[in-house]
């Protein structure tokens, strides 16, 4: 527990020291939203709500991939070796997942704010939509952290990250988009309970697999 707290603290300090990375991510999501805004040439209510929703999740997906792919590469090999001697692999992967979840939640909430600001906000049930964003942040972070760990071991990192992660993340993305669509249309919350349960189950599978498999990855 103590180890976990220290490791998360380390991630945050590291991020804070290299603030350009965090600012870069924020700028990335803001400029992507703006590109979409300009390329659709919208007045706020011309966009079909379904398209609105899809576009938002695609932006979040790309932000997630580029934000998380750096989580194993920003530190040099020597330093990783140093952590290897200090901390248990479970602690490392869990701290990375938790930290990335937090990062994703912050990024996608900020993205949602700006997106709703320029593209209009057709959401019927906003608390539910925000809950979806939080769940999606956790889910994306846990899947992508593991994939980033795998991709960081290979040479051609950036390309490999996207071919490995897109297929693996699609079940989660589909569930999230369905949940978001329910929230968008302001359906009764009981309708969405099944999706929430499946999403949490997928999260649980991914996190437990990461905990089991990461020690093997970490050794190399």
């Amino acid at each position: 527990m103590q180890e976990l707290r220290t490791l998360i603290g380390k991630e945050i300090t590291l991020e804070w020291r290299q603030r350009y990375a965090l600012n870069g991510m924020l700028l990335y999501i803001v400029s992507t939203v703006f590109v979409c805004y300009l390329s659709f040439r919208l007045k706020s209510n011309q966009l079909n709500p379904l398209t609105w929703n899809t576009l938002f999740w695609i932006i979040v997906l790309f932000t997630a991939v580029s934000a998380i792919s750096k989580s194993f590469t920003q530190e040099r090999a020597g330093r990783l070796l140093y952590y290897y001697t200090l901390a248990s692999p479970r602690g490392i992967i869990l701290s990375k997942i938790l930290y990335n979840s937090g990062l994703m939640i912050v990024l996608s909430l900020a993205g949602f704010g700006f997106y709703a600001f320029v593209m209009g906000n057709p959401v019927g049930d906003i608390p539910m939509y925000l809950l979806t964003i939080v769940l999606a942040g956790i889910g994306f972070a846990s899947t992508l952290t593991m994939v980033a760990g795998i991709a960081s071991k290979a040479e051609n990192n950036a390309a490999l990250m996207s071919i490995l992660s897109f297929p693996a993340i699609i079940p989660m993305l589909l569930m999230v988009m369905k949940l978001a669509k329910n929230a968008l249309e302001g359906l009764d919350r009981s309708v969405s309970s099944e999706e929430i349960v499946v999403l949490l189950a997928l999260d649980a599978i991914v996190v437990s697999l990461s905990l089991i498999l990461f020690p093997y990855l970490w050794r190399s």
Partner: protein
Amino acid sequence: MKNNWWKVLAVVLLTYGFYFGLMGEVPRRNILNESIRNVYFHVSLWFATTLFLLTSAIYSIRYLRSNNLTDDIKAVEFTNVALLFGALGCATGSLWARVTWGDWWPNDPKLNSVAISMLMYFAYTVLRSSLEDEQKKARISAVYNIFAFAVFIPLIYILPRMTDSLHPGNGGNPAFGEYDMDNQMRRVFYPIIIGWMLLGTWIATLRIRVRALTSND
């Protein structure tokens, strides 16, 4: 001969299955008509594919515990066979979809899941070729393979059942066996499943032996 009886069995079962699958009596159903015969080929190919992917995942787990490179080779070859059978499953499914649903590739959740999982396993082969060191390649691809299998199962067998789908057994549709198949068909269907599984295992074992021989040089 004593160890090869199952290869003979594979040939016998598949010959039997193909002959009666194409020539035997089938029940007449609306829309399906004669195309109901495809259940012998399309469905059984996917059952076999799932079995090979499961075998591959098991060999990956064994590799992680034993660090024995032959386990890794077995995992790869079973994935390759699964990719071959999956491609055949897609092709037969596509023909069937053209006849019954009117489109080569209808927008159906199960088809999309299949496409995604094929992409995932092609990514596995790309991942392997991008790593140089043998042990490292084996370890990392084993980790990915297990991960991919854990995504494959919900993708193919759980998520399509939750949405509207054209496939029987999904989205509240009754499964195929419930009333479309009769006992006559089952007598052909089950042998052909076993036949495909044996044939695929045979292909995989041959390739594993070839690999073992070439790597000894």
